[in-house]
């Protein structure tokens, strides 16, 4: 029996392509959606049916709950895949989808709600005995109370939206003056981006690494891990290079943590694909940061080293299959995979650069996987995320994977807008990256060091 009769993919770009391909492989009929800006977009040709969902601004289309629910109803979808970004971590939307009799491909809405609020998620992790970094609760409005909370924590501090994600509204502060300004600005960005004014403080860790653990659960109380990814290379608090497994890590410590997280979330009844993000401080301590209750942009590196198709696993889990059915044996890691995110942006200033792709030829080579929602002649508009493509290289060793990824990026032909390939290549070829000495400041360090070559 088929998992679903028809699945609506409520997203655009590379993730729409990824999910539609998985549906096609499983023989499940699909519906793709598009806004005014995405008429004729590449992912539409992969779907059985297409639905127009509204104007170019995301709030009129990809964030338009009514429009998506109406399309699902009209075309008879019995499941909806939210992809990542947009409505993928909106508990109210997930609940509305379920109420409409459509399966939401993701965890139960209560999990999206529990993990979507960062301070509540941190409290939950702490209650379960997981190591959690120093931080405050949601800040009160009172200026003196804010300063007191900051003093208790100690500077430097990072101000973060409680309902946030994607690095939006995260601002550092080194002293009380900076803190007051940062709280004000973060509050405004939080209200605008996440419809919540709540912000909180975290102790700013200098040059940490960002390591995350892939979990997959079923609707029957079973959770397994699919190893870890290192996503330390970031700009503007957003990942640009990700890899699996994590380099230069104490394997015994990591393996113990993987088992512990799987056991904890199994006991709690986590019921779908999810990722626990941890900060690895220079002192070697791994501490809980947050959990994402959706497919991640970087899921491909895990797939490349384990052979597990995470989108298929997510679909099968959501359809009610048991972990023992869709992942009969614990996965093992073979080789190394690295992903580079190619963005339409100025490689020096990291600023978005929309435009028309007058040249667009992704690399084709053995062991190279490219995921993109763009094609030659398409317009990259200012309405959406600037991700042009993900390029993933796989090899037996990390050094070989770096070589393959650099070669593939150098073959990628893009013209008509600015892109970050020169910066990606510089970072991948840096001594630090080669040595596995990654941290969240590496991308900025490399670009500052040699601005003329990016």
């Amino acid at each position, binding site marked *: 029996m088929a998992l679903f009769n028809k699945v609506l993919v409520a997203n655009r770009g590379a993730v729409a392509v990824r999910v539609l391909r998985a549906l096609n492989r499983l023989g499940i009929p699909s519906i793709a959606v598009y806004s005014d800006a995405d008429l004729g977009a590449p992912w539409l040709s992969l779907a059985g049916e297409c639905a127009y969902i509204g104007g170019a601004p995301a709030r009129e289309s990809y964030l338009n709950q009514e429009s998506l629910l109406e399309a699902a109803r009209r075309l008879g979808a019995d499941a909806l895949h939210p992809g990542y970004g947009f409505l993928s971590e909106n508990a109210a939307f997930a609940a509305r989808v379920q109420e409409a009799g459509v399966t939401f491909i993701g965890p139960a809405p209560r999990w999206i709600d529990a993990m979507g609020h960062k301070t509540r998620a941190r409290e939950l992790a702490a209650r379960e005995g997981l190591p959690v970094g120093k931080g405050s609760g949601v800040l009160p409005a009172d200026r003196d109370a804010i300063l007191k909370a900051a003093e208790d924590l100690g500077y430097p501090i990072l101000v973060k939206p409680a309902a946030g994600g994607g690095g939006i509204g995260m601002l550092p502060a080194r002293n009380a003056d900076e803190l007051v300004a940062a709280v004000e600005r973060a509050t405004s*960005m939080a209200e605008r981006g996440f419809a919540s004014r709540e912000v909180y403080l975290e102790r700013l860790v200098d040059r940490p690494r960002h390591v995350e653990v892939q979990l997959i659960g079923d609707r029957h109380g079973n959770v397994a891990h699919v190893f870890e990814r290192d996503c330390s290379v970031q700009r503007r608090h957003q990942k640009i290079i990700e890899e699996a497994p994590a380099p230069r890590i104490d394997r015994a410590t990591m393996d113990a943590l993987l088992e512990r997280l799987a056991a904890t979330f199994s006991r709690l009844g986590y019921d779908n694909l999810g990722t626990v993000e941890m900060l690895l401080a220079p002192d070697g301590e791994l501490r809980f940061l947050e959990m994402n209750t959706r497919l991640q942009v970087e899921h491909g590196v895990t797939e490349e080293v384990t052979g597990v198709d995470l989108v298929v696993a997510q679909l099968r889990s959501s359809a009610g299959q048991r972990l023992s059915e869709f992942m009969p044996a614990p996965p093992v890691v073979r080789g190394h995979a690295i992903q580079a995110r190619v963005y339409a*942006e100025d490689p020096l200033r990291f*600023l978005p650069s929309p435009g028309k792709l007058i040249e667009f030829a992704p690399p084709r080579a053995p062991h190279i996987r490219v995921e993109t929602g763009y094609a030659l002649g398409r317009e990259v508009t*200012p309405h*959406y995320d*600037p991700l042009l493509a993900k390029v993933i290289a796989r090899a037996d060793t990390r050094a070989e994977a770096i070589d393959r990824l650099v070669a593939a990026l150098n073959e990628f032909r893009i013209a008509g807008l600015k892109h970050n390939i020169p910066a990606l290549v510089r970072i991948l070829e840096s001594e630090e990256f080669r040595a596995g000495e990654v941290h969240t400041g590496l991308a900025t360090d490399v670009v500052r060091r040699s601005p003329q070559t990016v």
Partner: protein
Amino acid sequence: MAAIEVKSVVTGAVWKIVASVGQKLAAGDEIMILESMKMEIPVIAEDGGVLKELKVAEGTTVNEGQVVAVIEE
């Protein structure tokens, strides 16, 4: 009194105008905030002066390099 043209560094839309015409600005002050590809990008006065003219309104689409404001030193 030299007029300085303030240009947009990105293609995007004007989200919010922060400064008003006639306002005295110090170097580094925000004039407006643009939005492009999920990012908020502030337009900053590179030198101090008086904001003489705003060439765009909230919601306007702007191109990279387009003059969005004029400051008089």
